[in-house]
């Protein structure tokens, strides 16, 4: 039979030239196929384009020839070259009366043109005509083009005709009309909003394909607004019921599953309709239970339905019994050997734990296996899951994993995404400031410039503020450890700019604070930093300010600072910098060096970066000055209000330069471009207080410079202002971190023992929560120590925790099975005697901890290698078996194809691609 078919096909092809195309085209494909390099391919294609360009413009090209040219254009465009010169000919071809040509024209046009292309307007007329055609195939060709080409502006031109086609006698046309209207809805919802009743009518179409097309459209409409569709729940449920019960035509079966694509679509819609709606959800419970019961978990498509069902169950109003089933399905996925199913399982688990957080514990090892899987996709998905289940007690392990992951990938998109997650988790759950700083340093080091600037400011602020309590020792310890860590990091080559900025700031502020490093040493390091990134002005600004601070601290402490030669040349260079900001900084530095000790201590006090700067809005400190000025005959200050934002600066400037050239220096302050006046006010008045103390020394030039943004102060002040109230995030943790992460195997075995004894005692609780097949598939005996350790730290098997959790579970099981955990659960009722089948589970667990830690380490090595070899998926086996039985690769057919191709001379030479002839299913 198969052979007959093949022969028949070849005969058919023979009638229209072998393979239905001309020799030239075959030649083209062949040469491209044999091209040895990309450049050669390029050359061939360009030559082809040239020849097409020439020939397509010849007058009176026969239509059949034209069709071939256009197909060749499609081919060229598919290879990634521009074929726009031929678009117009494709458009012309759609006007042709011959259906074959018309269809080719439409195909080419839909492939070539986007919906906003200028040529579309030329096709509208043809489409309108074709939609009215008696021939339903012409109609269909036009509708297919409509779906691709009609944009918001042209919808009205075809809409009435398409609405008419909704009642066409051919189901094919009705279906495509629905699809077209769906497309219109996506483009511009308002154009078809009056057609909702028509859609609903088509939902009851006698042909299932039209109905399923309506489902696609419904899904999108419900996504936008659920309300108008609530009444459809009952009918959708009944359709789903019919599908599940095998009442749709047999041709919709797929691997013996009844209409799976329709089922999945319906489940998606029901998930939307049932979200937060108890009444609607209750309507669905029955049919959902039915699907869970009937679906066949040995085929891929059956699993697709089961997975969709889990999704639906986790988004509608919860039903404990069904949720239990969903948990079982998830467990089955996770335990599967197929990577695909594991992936789905991880995803499903991520959805489940939103509702029942405790169910993650049953799958600890499966999750860890996925995390260590060589498959990148699976790993990333597992990280997603971990992100969702991060809590204070497992944040360290999870963040460590994430950091390790981003260290090894190069994809910027995911690097940004995951590092922002790391930052979020670290900010929310950091167990200690030390850890937070370390983590941030790692993130900066790896993701570098992908990290937003704000994070750097937060980090500097944290180092400056310390624990936020009156524990100076801890704070200074934190700082000196930060300095130490940064000096270490500086040894690495190629650090991102943002990290260097943080380092410069920290070294400037705290580099010499604890006395273990000399000022020369730190300044030297700072100069080295600049040397690594010569063109980075922002970084230079940070460094100059840092050097300024260090010199000021040294002088204030009564020591003399001898600038090292590198530093001197660095500073000298900046006097002539193009950046005015940098120039100002070095002049400022220069001025600071000249100041005496006491003054220095008051302008740049040690460790005062987080001192609150009091904003004296009334400028009361100027009162005496104003009075004396008035007494000396000055004009009274006018219209204070209109210059409210910069009042502080202007007065300050006039204060400083009272005698000298006040007018000249006054000017720039008139209209400073200050985006946030509040911040500027803070900066200005901060300096003003310092400056007042010794205004005769502090030249006005410096006053000017200080008002421009000085990163160390503005960044702190800026974030301080913005972050008011966030501080409690970093508040002292309420537990000791040491208790969370078991440091050695003995520790783990303790915790595991506790959990296993808990499992024994509360076996009845596990009975309902642990899925039945756990009995079949016992946890492997030699689970490596490291995995257990990881599991313990990830899933928080702190002794107290494990005891408390099953108790809580038990309590729920008694009353409402798997309702969300209540925070304060009463002491557990007396546990029921454990059923016999669970005894072996509880037996098997305590055995492992008694293993010698050294053995466990040995196991760790062996298990890791054996874990990599997974058996072929059951699903695939089933598929393959079915295929072999029904068709299988037919060598005869391939041979014949081979013969035909030889006839036209397209046999790929040598071993370029012997697979060309291989049956795709082979």
């Amino acid at each position, binding site marked *: 039979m198969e052979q007959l078919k093949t022969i028949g096909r070849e005969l058919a092809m023979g009638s229209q030239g072998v393979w239905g195309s001309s020799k030239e085209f075959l030649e083209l494909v062949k040469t491209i196929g044999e091209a040895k390099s990309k450049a050669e391919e390029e050359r061939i294609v360009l030559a082809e384009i040239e020849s097409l360009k020439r020939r397509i413009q010849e007058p009176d090209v026969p239509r059949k020839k034209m069709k071939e040219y256009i197909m060749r254009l*499609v081919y060229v465009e598919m290879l990634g070259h521009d074929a726009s010169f031929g678009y117009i000919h494709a458009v012309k071809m759609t006007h042709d009366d011959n259906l074959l040509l018309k269809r080719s024209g439409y195909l080419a046009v839909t492939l070539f043109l986007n919906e906003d292309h200028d040529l579309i307007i030329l096709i509208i007329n043809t489409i309108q005509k074709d939609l009215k055609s008696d021939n339903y195939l012409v109609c269909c060709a036009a509708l297919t083009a409509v*779906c691709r080409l009609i944009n918001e502006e042209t919808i009205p031109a075809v809409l009435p005709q398409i609405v008419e086609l909704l009642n066409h006698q051919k189901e094919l046309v009705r279906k495509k009309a629905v699809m077209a209207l769906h*497309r219109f809805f996506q483009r511009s919802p308002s154009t078809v909003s009056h057609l909702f009743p028509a859609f609903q009518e088509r939902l009851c179409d006698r042909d299932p394909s039209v109905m399923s097309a309506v489902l696609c459209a419904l899904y999108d409409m419900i996504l936008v607004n659920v309300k108008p569709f609530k009444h459809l729940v009952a009918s959708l449920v009944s359709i789903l019921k019919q599908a599940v019960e095998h009442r749709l035509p047999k041709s919709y079966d797929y691997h013996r599953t009844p209409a799976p694509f329709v089922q999945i679509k319906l489940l998606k819609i029901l998930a939307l309709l049932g979200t937060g709606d108890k009444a609607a959800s209750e309507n669905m419970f029955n049919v959902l239970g039915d699907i869970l019961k009937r679906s066949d978990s040995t085929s891929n498509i059956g699993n697709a339905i089961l*997975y969709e069902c889990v999704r639906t169950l986790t988004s509608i109003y919860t039903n404990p019994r069904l949720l239990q089933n969903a948990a079982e399905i998830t467990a089955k996925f996770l335990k599967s050997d197929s*990577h695909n199913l594991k992936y789905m399982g991880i995803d499903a688990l991520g959805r489940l734990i939103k509702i029942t957080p405790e169910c993650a514990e049953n799958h600890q090892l499966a999750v860890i296996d996925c995390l260590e899987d060589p498959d990148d996709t699976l790993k990333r998905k597992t990280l997603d899951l971990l992100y969702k289940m991060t809590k204070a007690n497992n944040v360290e392990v999870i963040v460590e994993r994430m950091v390790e992951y981003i260290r090894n990938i190069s994809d910027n998109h995911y690097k940004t995404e995951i590092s922002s997650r790391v930052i979020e988790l670290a900010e929310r759950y950091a167990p200690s400031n030390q850890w937070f700083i370390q983590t941030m340093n790692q993130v900066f080091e790896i993701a570098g410039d992908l990290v937003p600037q704000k994070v750097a400011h937060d980090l500097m602020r944290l180092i400056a503020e310390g624990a936020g309590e009156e524990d100076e020792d801890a704070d200074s310890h934190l700082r000196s450890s930060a300095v130490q860590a940064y000096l270490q990091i500086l040894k690495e080559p190629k650090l991102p700019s943002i990290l260097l900025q943080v380092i410069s700031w920290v070294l400037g502020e705290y580099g010499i604070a604890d006395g273990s490093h000399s000022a020369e040493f730190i300044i030297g390091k700072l100069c080295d930093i600049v040397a690594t990134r010569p063109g980075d002005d922002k970084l230079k600004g940070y460094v100059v300010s840092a050097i300024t601070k260090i010199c000021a601290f040294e002088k204030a402490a009564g020591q003399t600072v001898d600038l090292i030669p590198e530093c001197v040349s660095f500073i000298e260079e900046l006097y002539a910098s193009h950046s005015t900001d940098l120039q100002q900084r070095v002049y400022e530095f220069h001025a600071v060096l000249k100041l005496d000790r006491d003054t220095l201590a008051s302008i740049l006090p040690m460790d005062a970066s987080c001192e609150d700067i009091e904003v004296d809005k009334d400028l009361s400190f100027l009162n005496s000055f104003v009075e004396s000025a008035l007494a000396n005959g000055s004009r009274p200050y006018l219209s204070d209000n209109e210059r409210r934002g910069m009042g502080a600066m202007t007065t300050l400037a006039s204060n400083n330069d009272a005698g000298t050239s006040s007018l000249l220096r006054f000017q720039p302050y008139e209209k400073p471009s200050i985006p946030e006046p509040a911040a500027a006010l803070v900066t200005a008045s901060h300096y003003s207080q310092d400056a007042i103390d010794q205004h005769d020394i502090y030249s006005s030039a410096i006053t000017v410079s200080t008002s421009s943004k000085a990163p160390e102060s503005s960044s702190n002040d800026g974030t301080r202002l913005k972050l008011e109230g966030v501080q409690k995030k970093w508040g002292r943790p309420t537990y000791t971190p040491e208790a969370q992460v078991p440091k050695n195997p003995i520790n783990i075995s303790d915790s595991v023992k506790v959990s296993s004894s808990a499992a024994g005692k509360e076996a009845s609780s596990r009975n309902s929560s642990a899925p039945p097949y756990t009995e079949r598939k016992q946890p492997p005996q030699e689970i490596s120590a490291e995995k257990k350790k990881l599991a313990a730290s990830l899933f928080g098997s702190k002794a107290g925790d494990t005891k408390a959790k099953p108790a809580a579970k038990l309590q729920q099981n008694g009353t409402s099975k798997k309702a969300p955990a209540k925070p304060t659960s009463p002491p557990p009722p007396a546990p029921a005697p454990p059923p016999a089948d669970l005894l072996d589970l509880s037996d098997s667990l305590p055995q492992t901890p008694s293993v010698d830690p050294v053995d466990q380490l040995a196991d760790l090595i062996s298990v890791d290698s054996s874990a990599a070899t997974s058996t*072929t998926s059951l699903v695939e086996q089933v598929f393959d078996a079915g295929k072999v039985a029904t068709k299988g690769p037919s060598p005869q057919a391939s041979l014949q194809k081979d013969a035909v191709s030889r006839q036209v001379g397209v046999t790929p030479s040598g071993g370029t*691609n012997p697979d060309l002839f291989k049956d795709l299913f082979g």
Partner: protein
Amino acid sequence: QIRFVLLISRQGKVRLTKWYSPYTQKERLKAIRELSALILPRGPKLCNFVEWKGLKVVYKRYASLYFCICVDSEDNELDGLEVIHHYVQVLDRYFGNVCELDLIFNFHKAYFILDEILIAGELQESSKKSVSRVISAQDTLVENAKEQASSLSNMIAQATK
């Protein structure tokens, strides 16, 4: 919703592309390049999904051809996998033991079939029988039209003689 369909050979040659969302020619080339680099080296035991720029690409290898579809991150991956399989089955039914060569030389047919299965990024027909029926109806119609045209022109020629 499906963003695009991509058929690439094991050597990274493009065999068929269909874009359901707007992509410029440049973006298309970039997507093809990135995805071939991502998918082709993956081993047979790994899962058939890769995440790509916030979307997901579901792929399946048949002999030397990779069928890839790019779907939204919220879509059901297994469903996507079966859509691919469905398409291949229909192709197989149409060509009879479909092989890569069939798709190379009859890519317009492959496009026509794809158009009957997917429209605007949605699965439109899940019944293999109906798809085959439509395609063969189109094919026979084409034949008929040809015959009619030739007989008509004959008649005209005779009449005008």
